[in-house]
């Protein structure tokens, strides 16, 4: 691992990944208690992607993604209180309780949402990037999507347009090997090396380990730097593993219990921790401090969400139209 990062940054990656992990675990508990409802898709195991990516961006860069969006939102700077309140359907949530888990939005942080139609966010990403190009800004748009989304027509239409029009979209594929219960080998021609398809659109593409936050960050940093120069699209396939079921409703009967082991999956948070300890970048005391801070933030978030009022009935009618 070679890197231009400093200690603070590494510790911050650790903190953010842990924050997302604990946030997700808290969500799981609140779901079991019936306080979060509907569909809940946890990001556990994929934290390095969001954290490594966002740290490589400018605050004004756009980020858009799919329904598995808590990690993206938090890494882009969304307040965990507001996010948790949204998941609990509270008036204090980011969408006043009307969006829920799959639809986090934070306009101030340029987090353009959580979208729940598979691949539906991709054409929108092209539009965000088109706006930047139109205004001759050097902002970029990061578009997160899953391996399952690759098989939607909109994936294709968007990559083609982004290439023909030279739009600054960073296509960031989170390949966790599964779309719900369907393994990518059974759904995608050519199997799991999806980044190779980017070449068909004349878009430079790479595949990297999405469970290594330092590698993620470095790759995205390099990529973004070159995008700001030439304004064109890029494609990164981040290989990762979804620890939990597709959603809380999924008992994952379709995969072997020891699949993760067989794949040699290394936890992104553990990996970074071990790396930092090994090279004495942080010590146990510092780690404990971070842990405590994270635990506190999450328990505050849960408290805030639980204590927040439910929306008044009139909220139902608000913001249908501008």
């Amino acid at each position, binding site marked *: 691992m070679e890197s231009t990062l400093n200690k603070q940054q590494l510790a911050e990656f650790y903190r953010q990944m842990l924050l997302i992990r604990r946030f997700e675990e808290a969500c799981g508990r609140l779901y079991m208690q019936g306080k979060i409802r*509907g569909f809940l898709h946890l990001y556990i195991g994929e934290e390095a992607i969001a954290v490594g990516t966002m740290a490589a961006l400018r605050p004004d860069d756009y980020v858009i993604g799919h329904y598995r969006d808590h990690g993206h939102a938090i890494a882009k700077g969304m307040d965990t209180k507001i996010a948790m309140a949204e998941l609990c*359907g509270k008036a204090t949530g980011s*969408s006043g*309780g009307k969006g829920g888990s799959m639809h986090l939005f934070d306009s101030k942080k340029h987090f353009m949402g959580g979208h729940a139609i598979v691949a539906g966010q991709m054409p929108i990403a092209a539009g965000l990037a088109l706006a930047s190009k139109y205004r001759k800004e050097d902002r970029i748009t990061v578009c997160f999507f899953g391996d399952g989304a690759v098989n939607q*027509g909109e994936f294709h239409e968007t990559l083609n347009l982004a290439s023909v029009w030279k739009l600054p979209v960073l296509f960031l594929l989170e390949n966790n090997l599964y779309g719900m219960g369907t393994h990518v080998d059974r759904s995608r021609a050519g199997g799991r090396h999806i980044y190779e398809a980017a070449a068909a659109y004349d878009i430079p593409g790479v595949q990297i380990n999405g469970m290594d936050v330092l590698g993620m960050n470095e790759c995205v940093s390099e990529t973004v730097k070159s995008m700001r120069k030439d304004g064109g699209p890029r494609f990164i396939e981040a290989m990762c593993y979804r620890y939990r079921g597709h959603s809380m409703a999924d008992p994952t*009967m379709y995969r072997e219990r020891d699949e993760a082991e067989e794949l040699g999956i290394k936890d992104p948070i553990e990996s970074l921790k071990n790396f930092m300890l090994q090279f004495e970048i942080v010590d146990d005391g510092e780690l404990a401090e971070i842990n405590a801070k994270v635990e506190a933030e999450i328990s505050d978030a849960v408290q805030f969400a639980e204590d927040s009022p439910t929306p008044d009935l009139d*909220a*139902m009618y608000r913001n249908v139209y501008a």
Partner: protein
Amino acid sequence: MAEMILREAVAKGLREALEDDRVFIMGEDIGAYGGAYAVTRGFLDEFGPERVMDTPISESVIVGAGVGSALAGLKPIVELMTINFSLVAIDQIVNHAAKLRYMSDGQFTVPLVIRTVTGGGGQLAATHSQSFENWYASVPGLKVVVPATPYDALGLFRTAMKDGNPILFAEHSLLYGMRGDVPDDWYEIPFGKADIKRSGDDVTIVAYSRMTHIALQAAAMLEERGRQAEVIDLRTLRPWDKDTVLQSVRKTNRVVVVEETWRTGGFSGEVASTIQEEAFDDLDGPVARVGGVDVPAPYNGMLEAATIPTAERVLQALNDSYGI
């Protein structure tokens, strides 16, 4: 006679259908995962991957592949995980499945059954809680089936498999756990034949899919007030059974139409307009309509519940129209 839940009734229909070699089913996560709503759990083992095909997340080609294999003489059953996702395949349904017989003047037919899941109430928010059956019900060349009970689901499904036309078969997610009697003996339920789920002389409530049960609740509440409601479950929207509805209205002189989709532009407009066209002089007041509130579905449970018709709102609508 066996008691079963609606999910089991549909699964039974699918199993029967699969006895015909020309029948196969395909859709997202219907195999290894067992179906997003568990309808096809166990099917992959039972029938093998050539008859139970997991597809990529590509609704358009899933439906199109159904159309093509139907043109070639097979009898595909396609599952769209929910009706919300049918929007990315709607061109194949409306511009292809529904039109090929007409455009070829009968040279080709498209015996395709598209099963899907409709309705809200699960706190799945705005893009995952819709009911577009009314749109499909406006398309010549399609048929639209909207069962409310296990008995109806099985009987209608059997008819769908024999029908020979492209059919949208929409199962309500909140009804999968609904229990009901299903005869052991073979029966079928024709399309375009509404079911009187409860008879009564004072007022008619027309509904379909899950709203049939809201209608029955409203009828129970009316009974407490000494009024007998006739509850008509349309069962199919295209064709829809106006005769049964009109006959009832001619008897009761009062009618309310209940549906879950947004009230504005819903199918209740078709039903209400038709009733007043054909039974104007029999009406004691305007045909009442109760539909979903005209907003995207909010995630919050209390808000969402407030968008969906309730028995109380049915009673209120009757009161507004007929002062009862």
